[in-house]
């Protein structure tokens, strides 16, 4: 589509880059919360054209990365339960848990299926009426509607052999926790475009209102990200932090009310553990009592009490923006995409994987 590919047009990018260079600001750290943005920023080459005073910092917006080892171990334990088919999005398969990954569990004979969609997980349950299909539900607000829709469809179809192991998380409590910890200095935030397509742009208003931090909701094309960066620098330059939305072709102030309504119908917030953060109140999604029959946690009694982290892995600090991947001693040495020690090197949108792919040799 010409209209959408125009957002990659380098001729259109030049004036925005020039605007960015004319902005009169001191050194600025802009955090992109979303791992998809991290990858898009690297892939576009945008880091190379920004003024050196503008530093882009990756945040915790990678659901695979912030999943705790205890939660991953629980999914692996479910996969080991006789009669269970564990269905998971592909991103999670190679992440090392405390003892092994889902991929290794599969190699040991567990029935683990990669699905692209919850629709595929429902189909699995219909095809295997003698098995229990457990969907390992990871993701943020963008992905939660698909999980809610699956539960509602399972009920409508009378599926008794389908359940969810929900480790889904909410980005606003996560962002609040990050800023509350106070160990990273962020001057501006690029807000996640697809999370915001569901919850709306407005929930991000707490950043300017409570923290004086400007936020620009952005899409994932180079021009989206440049326009968002220019807008953020403009707000810093004029000392007027606000919420702007440079992704208006997708994101509405109120979001997708139907999708978010379905999420709230099926799930309730709960305290949950994020890698690198510990417990964050009301930052996870658990099935409501009315849908308890679809909750794998209640259907199977799985206890995981021996979760451990790899001692050398510093994914937690990478996710908080306290260090960048090259600061980690095992980055690109003991920890590579082939032999990852932590999730940020596995996930296609993990910071470590992005640095490894795009910036390993530049020393930055």
């Amino acid at each position, binding site marked *: *589509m010409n*209209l*959408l590919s*125009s*957002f990659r047009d380098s001729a*259109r990018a030049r*004036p*925005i880059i*020039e*605007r960015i260079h*004319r*902005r009169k600001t001191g050194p600025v750290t802009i955090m992109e919360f*979303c*791992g*998809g943005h991290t990858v898009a920023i690297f892939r576009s080459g945008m880091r190379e054209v920004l003024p050196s005073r503008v530093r882009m910092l990756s945040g915790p*917006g990678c*659901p*695979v990365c912030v999943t705790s080892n205890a939660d991953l171990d629980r999914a692996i334990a479910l996969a080991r339960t006789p009669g269970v088919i564990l269905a998971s*999005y592909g991103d999670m398969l190679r992440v090392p848990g405390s003892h092994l990954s889902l991929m290794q569990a599969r190699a040991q004979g567990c029935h683990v299926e990669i699905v*692209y*969609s*919850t*629709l*595929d997980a429902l189909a699995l349950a219909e095809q295997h009426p003698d098995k229990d299909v457990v969907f390992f539900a*990871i*993701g*943020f607000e*963008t*992905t939660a*509607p*698909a999980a*809610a*829709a699956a539960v509602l*469809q399972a009920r409508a179809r009378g599926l008794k052999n389908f359940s969810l192991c929900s480790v889904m998380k909410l980005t606003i409590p996560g962002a609040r926790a990050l800023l509350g910890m106070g160990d990273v200095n962020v001057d501006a935030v690029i807000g*996640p475009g*697809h*999370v915001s*397509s*569901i919850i709306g742009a407005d929930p991000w208003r707490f950043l300017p209102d409570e923290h004086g931090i400007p936020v620009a909701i952005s899409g994932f094309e180079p*021009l989206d990200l440049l*326009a968002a960066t220019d*807008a953020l620098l*403009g*707000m810093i*330059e*004029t000392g007027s932090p*606000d*919420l*702007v*939305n*440079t992704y*208006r*072709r*997708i994101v509405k102030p109120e979001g*997708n009310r*139907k*999708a978010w309504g*379905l999420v709230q119908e099926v799930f309730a917030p709960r305290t949950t553990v994020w890698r690198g953060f510990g417990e964050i109140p009301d930052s996870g999604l658990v099935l409501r009592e009315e849908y308890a029959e679809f909750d794998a946690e209640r259907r199977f009694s799985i206890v995981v009490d021996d979760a451990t982290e790899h001692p050398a892995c510093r994914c937690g600090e990478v996710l908080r923006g306290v260090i960048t991947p090259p600061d980690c001693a095992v980055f690109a040495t003991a920890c590579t995409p082939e032999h990852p020690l932590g999730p940020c090197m596995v*996930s296609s*949108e993990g910071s470590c994987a992005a640095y490894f792919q795009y910036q390993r040799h530049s020393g930055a």
Partner: protein
Amino acid sequence: MCLAVPAKVLELRDNQMALVDLGGTQREISLMVLDGEVAPDQYVLVHVGYAIEVIDEDEARRTLELFEEFQALDERESLGSDTDVPDAFR
């Protein structure tokens, strides 16, 4: 994980499903979480098999027009009042 891609709606089907063209590949997706109606030839944003939003082509055009204004200003080398964030993004 939040990767979502534009797809052109080809055909509406039963059970809130639709056939879409996803970068040259045809695929059936769900419209169950989409707010409002969509028609063939419109573009939707697809995430994990579900359309999550209709792409607003008018807004896309408006944003691109704004970028053209940036260009026009550059050509006139007018820098003065151009520091503000465009109202169109607010």
